[in-house]
């Protein structure tokens, strides 16, 4: 009984939302989630490829919000714009979804990564 409780607490802690400061932090966290929990995503993936892959895998987030956050992040990351304010919620949600799915995979022994 206590063992189950302990496992449940550990699992909850593991998928606790990360504390991110801004959109840049959210994308760095998403990168960590993808690298760690989507095993078949190659090291050389680009953000566009990741979005396509996760969308195709049926991960349910608001993809239009996600894509507009990505566009703002790219403008900051590669275009030298200021750090965008807001827009990180959907990125964090996606990151959490990826992590939760892998927990399911580990517990049930089926499905891979974000599939």
């Amino acid at each position: 009984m206590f063992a189950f409780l302990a496992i449940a607490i550990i699992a909850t802690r593991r998928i606790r939302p990360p504390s991110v400061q801004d959109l840049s932090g959210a994308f760095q966290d998403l990168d960590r989630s993808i690298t760690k929990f989507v095993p078949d995503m190659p090291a050389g993936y680009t953000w566009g490829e990741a979005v396509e892959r996760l969308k195709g895998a049926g991960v349910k987030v608001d993809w239009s919000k996600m894509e507009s956050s990505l566009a703002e992040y790219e403008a900051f990351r590669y275009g030298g714009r200021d750090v965008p304010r807001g827009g990180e919620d959907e990125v964090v949600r996606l990151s959490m979804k990826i992590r939760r799915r892998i927990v399911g995979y580990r517990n049930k022994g089926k499905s891979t990564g974000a599939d």
Partner: protein
Amino acid sequence: MDTGIKERVLEQIRKVVVGRDREAELLLVSFLSGGHVLLEGVPGVSKTILAKSFAKCMGLEFKRVQFTPDMLPMDMVGGFVFNMKDREFEFRQGPVFTNLLLADEINRAPPKVQSALLEAMQEGQVTVEGLTQKLPFPFMVIATQNPQEFQGVYPLPENQLDRFLMKITLPYPDSSTESKIIRRNLDEMDTGDVKEVFEPKELEGILHQVEKVQVSDEVIDYLSTIAEETRKEKRLSLGASPRAMVHLIHCGRANAYLAGRDFVIPEDIKSVSSYVLAHRLKLDQSAVLTGTVADPSQVVQDIFTKVRPPR
């Protein structure tokens, strides 16, 4: 920034060429990058009509040269002829003096003619008997070659291949596309249906804006890492040249511009990498003989799969 350019061009090309959107898009990227293209494909896969319709919709002056084994350099760049009236030699421009030159079956021309194209492609000028003449701006060469021809051909050497920004292979169309092509050609079709989509001034402005697209240091470092990987790759005996990487970044800029951005993202580079790099790489013969690799594009893809882009 105008993001409808690609659609405007494709709309016109689709009027006469079926199922070649990607190839037309790559021609546009090459043009905006200031580069030249090698189109490879068996006869009858719409290489020539694609080049012609592209030139027409871009509003470019177009000339076609059919390369043959008995050709001389002056047949292409021009030469001095004696003017009986003025009693002096004067320079008569060859077909290279145009905006878009279609060098049809380039591998059938002898090396002297092929190398005469080098200066034109690289410098945008030609020199004949000490007289240097600037070519019109913009200047683009679209060369074609048939990969199935082995007799009476002069394969392009590595240094010439390196001058081509992209090599685009045109495969046979799939059966549904082929049906469309046959159906469309029941009626007479020519490039007359294609309309110019740009005024010369507008085109100049676009080329100018592409040059302004910025590239971050991290993206440049990413490219350097890719170049290094091609040189370390065991399956290759010749890796990517610095010129190849410069070409790649120009394509990245053009892609970014067409996507409506004023900065390059790694995807802009990755999406055209095989077209820009594969034809410059030389496979290691032992890797080919052992069946490890058969196509340089595969090596390019493998490298881009393993090198982490800035994220």
